[in-house]
């Protein structure tokens, strides 16, 4: 709560800067429009305006600055415009009972969410299994770990189209699966690293303690390694779900996904409707925030239950 005031202040500053930036960003567009509708602007032709700085343009056409805040296709929309578009495609549609229509961002968010969650589950499972293998087997540790790092340096976008084709080759239908695979690809790594750290967290003396009880390998895992990895697990889950969302959206950009927030960004770009892009971006941001917050909450509850202070 102590952070509320500073955060709000910083947010306000960001909004203010955003508003101030709108005019210079959009002035050319506003002048083009004004010229077409027959109003006098200086300089008179788009070609002539090309070489004049935006500041000069604003100074010479003070009357048009207001128009820069009301363009249909702004280079930089105002926060209001973005918020308005978001409301129009979510709340308003929900109020009209069309929350799941294809024109509603709620529908697209749900599509993205589904792939994100599948990818998250898949990636987390892979990450945990990999971590267990790495912690328990030296060969796996030595041969896998470097490749796990290298795998993250491969730009998955490049693989996206191939993943579609390969998965359809393997008889996997539906466009959600490739997205989930990409999401899992990005998600597994932080989970793997975190879990390796977590499973190795017990101090030698803690392991020795169980040795003195002559505990079995499974007992050591269940009673010591697993519980002590929980805080690490949650920390990496939070990174993992964010990565998973990034993966889904990246997967929706070029894999020809036709629904989902990434697809909305793409389509907004294709049809030159910046407001749609911004609204989808905002929705994605809200979703990321919600998912991470949810996991954070889960972490607090779990750790409290386990008696470890959060």
């Amino acid at each position: 709560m102590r952070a509320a005031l500073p955060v709000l202040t910083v947010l306000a500053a960001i909004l203010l800067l955003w508003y101030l930036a709108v005019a210079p960003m959009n002035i050319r567009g506003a002048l083009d429009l004004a010229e077409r509708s027959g109003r006098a602007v200086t300089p008179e032709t788009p070609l002539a305006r090309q070489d004049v700085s935006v500041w000069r343009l604003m100074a010479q056409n003070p009357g048009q600055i207001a128009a820069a805040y009301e363009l249909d296709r702004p280079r930089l929309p105002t926060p209001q415009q973005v918020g308005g578009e978001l409301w129009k495609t979510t709340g308003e549609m929900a109020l009209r009972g069309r929350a799941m229509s294809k024109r509603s961002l709620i529908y697209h968010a749900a599509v993205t969410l589904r792939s994100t969650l599948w990818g998250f589950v898949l990636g987390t499972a892979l990450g945990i299994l990999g971590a267990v293998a790495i912690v328990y087997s030296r060969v796996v540790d030595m041969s896998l770990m470097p490749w796990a790092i290298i795998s993250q340096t491969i730009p998955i976008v490049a693989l996206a189209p191939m993943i579609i084709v390969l998965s359809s080759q393997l008889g996997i239908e539906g466009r959600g699966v490739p997205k989930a695979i990409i999401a899992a690809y990005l998600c597994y790594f932080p989970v793997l690293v975190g879990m390796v750290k977590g499973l190795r967290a017990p101090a030698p003396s803690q392991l020795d303690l169980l040795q003195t009880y002559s505990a079995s390998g499974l007992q050591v895992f269940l009673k010591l390694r697993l519980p002590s990895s929980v805080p690490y697990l949650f920390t990496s889950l939070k990174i993992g779900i964010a990565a998973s969302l990034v993966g889904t959206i990246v997967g929706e950009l070029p894999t020809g996904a036709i629904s989902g927030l990434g697809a909305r960004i793409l389509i907004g770009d294709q049809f030159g409707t910046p407001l749609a892009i911004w609204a989808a971006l905002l929705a994605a941001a809200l979703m990321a925030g919600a998912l991470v917050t949810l996991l954070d909450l889960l972490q607090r509850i779990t750790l409290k239950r386990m008696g470890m202070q959060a």
Partner: protein
Amino acid sequence: MMWLIFALAFWAGAWALNAALARSRWRDTRVVRIAVPVLFGVTLLVLWEGMVRGLGVSPVILPAPSVVAQTFAASTETLWEDFRQTVLKGALTGFAIGASAALLTSVAIDRSAFLTRGLLPIGNFVAALPIIGIAPILVSWFGFDWQSKAAVVVVMVFFPILVNTVQGLRETDAMQRDLMRTYAAGYWHTLLKLRLPAAMPFIFNGLKIATTLALIGAIVAEYFGSPTRGMGFRISTGVGSLSIDLVWAEIAVAALAGTAFYSLVALAERAVTFWHPSQRRR
């Protein structure tokens, strides 16, 4: 079929060898530390080659590694041109600008506890966002050439580095700060002699995360418009014209570049934070 059997046999053999190496007396030597993962990588390639040949997979779906290697060798000029466009101009420039901006910003806001408290949660939040989505916007703002790619990279790397650095600057323990107070040390002395060195492990953590982001950012941005060169450009047109072997060659370049970039940062980390327990060899 022969190919498939050979590949599987090779796999089994290599794994057994690796297992033996990992248990052997020399398991902590540098040679073995490198040989084991390399052997594992080679196994994957052999398995891939064997699958493609054994199952007769069409080259427009998945080319064999040998074919990719040939294409790689035959198109070094194209690959170099794309590498320069995407990695050197787009990713590295963006990384340099983004990283410096993030470092300077952290030091600047660090003086104000108020700003730090306000910016840290926001930075953490933004670092978790799918920032990659702004690529189309930045391409329309900064044009088609590498500048827009660099811009995407700047935004993508900025927040992870910022958050880590701010965190690192706050990480010195109370005793070390008190020590500086007993010397009546000023802000700059404390920053240069205590807080920056102590923050280095964190800063490098951010830098390492940023390296992989930089490459992804630069390549994705090319999907939204580019000149007729660049790795993203080549990959997308390659898929369109079924030159999948060239696409894989580009992927190989990306992986090599990414790994090299990451290793470079990791090496610098070793040199700078040699003192940190995680870097010390016992």
